[in-house]
């Protein structure tokens, strides 16, 4: 209990102390408010621009959900496809690694040309950066099945489908969840980058507010975007806990 109090209480104390110090430093003009607005101003923007900010956040959340959802479904299916056919694996796996290194910021303008302004370009941008960690981690999970268990399935004459469903897929779950954790954060970043150019959502607000030198609004928007990322990652953590709590040491079955 005491430990729990420390774990929650201490970060809150540190947060309050830092915010107070920051506010104080800004008030007595140690910090230029055009570079770093004081916390009360950011709060003010959060309240004053709340309709605009929250509806933009809704748009961003929508795009992130679609791109992350696509990444999960297509990423896992692609990994299974790569896993089931050695030919496909050798032919395409090097490219999945290559695509992972493509800088999204550089191709975002192209996405706008291909998909037009608005949500489709944003979804594409979020999807492109978040799908590869899912493919890579799922494939790693599928390939790291225990050799003795593979022998066991062969001994009982399991079909490839049975082995996939009863051995490879469940065994890869901890790897998949790790991949999703990375992918979720990237989906938010990818979507915001897309929105810079796509002209919608929180990314667009950041872009416009920056141009208007409304640094407080930029910060308010960034805060909301981070909150969105955090929420997504917490949801993934929760899913991971529910799925793995009984059997995987990373979720505390060792107690």
């Amino acid at each position: 209990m005491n430990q729990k109090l420390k774990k929650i209480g201490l970060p809150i104390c540190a947060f309050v102390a830092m915010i107070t110090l920051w506010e104080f430093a800004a008030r007595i003009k140690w910090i230029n408010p055009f570079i770093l607005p004081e916390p009360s101003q950011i709060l003010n923007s959060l309240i004053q621009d709340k309709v605009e900010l929250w509806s933009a956040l809704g748009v961003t959340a929508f795009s992130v959900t679609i791109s992350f959802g696509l990444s999960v479904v297509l990423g896992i299916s692609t990994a299974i496809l790569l896993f089931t056919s050695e030919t496909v694996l050798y032919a395409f796996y090097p490219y999945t690694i290559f695509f992972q290194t493509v800088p999204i910021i550089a191709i975002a303008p192209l996405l706008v040309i291909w998909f037009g302004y608005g949500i489709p370009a944003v979804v594409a941008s979020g999807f492109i950066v978040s799908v590869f960690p899912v493919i890579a981690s799922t494939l790693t999970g599928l390939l790291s099945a225990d050799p003795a268990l593979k022998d066991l399935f062969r001994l009982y004459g399991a079909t490839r489908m049975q082995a996939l469903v009863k051995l490879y897929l469940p065994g890869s779950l901890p790897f998949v969840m790790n991949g999703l954790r990375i992918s979720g954060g990237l989906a938010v970043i990818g979507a915001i980058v897309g929105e810079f150019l796509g002209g919608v959502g929180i990314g667009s607000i950041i872009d416009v507010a920056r141009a208007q030198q409304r640094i407080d609004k930029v910060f308010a928007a960034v805060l909301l975007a981070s909150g969105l990322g955090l929420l997504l990652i917490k949801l993934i953590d929760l899913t991971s806990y529910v799925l793995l709590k009984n059997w995987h040491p990373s979720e505390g079955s060792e107690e």
Partner: protein
Amino acid sequence: MATGLSVQISEVVKRYDSGLSPLKGVSFQLEAGKFLALIGPSGCGKSTLLKMIAHLREPTSGKLLIGRGEPEERRLAYVFQDAQLLPWRTVLGNVTLPLEILGASKVEQELKARKALERVGLIDFEQYYPAHLSGGMRMRVSLARSLVNEPNLLLLDEPFAALDEVTRLKLDRDLRDLWQESQMTVIFVTHSISEAAFLSDRIILLSKKTGNIQYDLINPLPSHRTQETRALPAFAQLTQDLFLKFQDLEA
């Protein structure tokens, strides 16, 4: 209950790509329903031989005939050194696995799995996950899984090596009893001379140096084995005899 399968091995050679050749022409015949203990120093090829008998590995040359060689009559089970359970399945789910793969009905799966769990004394733990069991209990689950399809050839590769001695002696007795209730053939790989002596009808000692059988003997102990068997002079003599043969190998 089905009769066990005989095993005929002739001139089996296994050479790995590394050039290493642990088995250089091993031959023996095992009658149906016997309990064979396979012992030998580490690296002499015991696991390799067992996997070839299970058709999990191919011999480089030579022949292995299991029963009459018909795939349909073969009902094998294999127990590994560590329990090798599926951690995402409950105890019951692990034990039903072989039947599930073979396509048995749900009712039959659970009926037989519960019977197997009862035989290894774990019926109260069917909803537990492997992570919440002790090493000995996990091994029992593994044993129950291997019994659930009523195998006619049971292969065990140092199954109890990682357990504490009391648990191991208990499991040895249980295994011997289980075998006597059935008619299955058992091949049991172990490092332990006294375990081999206690369990088997027959003991084969493999040599690492020659890559062949060094010693092949019929176990002279009475077929009904209890804890007291270990105190018999015949038991002491057998283990001493095996120990000396083993020592010759290492020299």
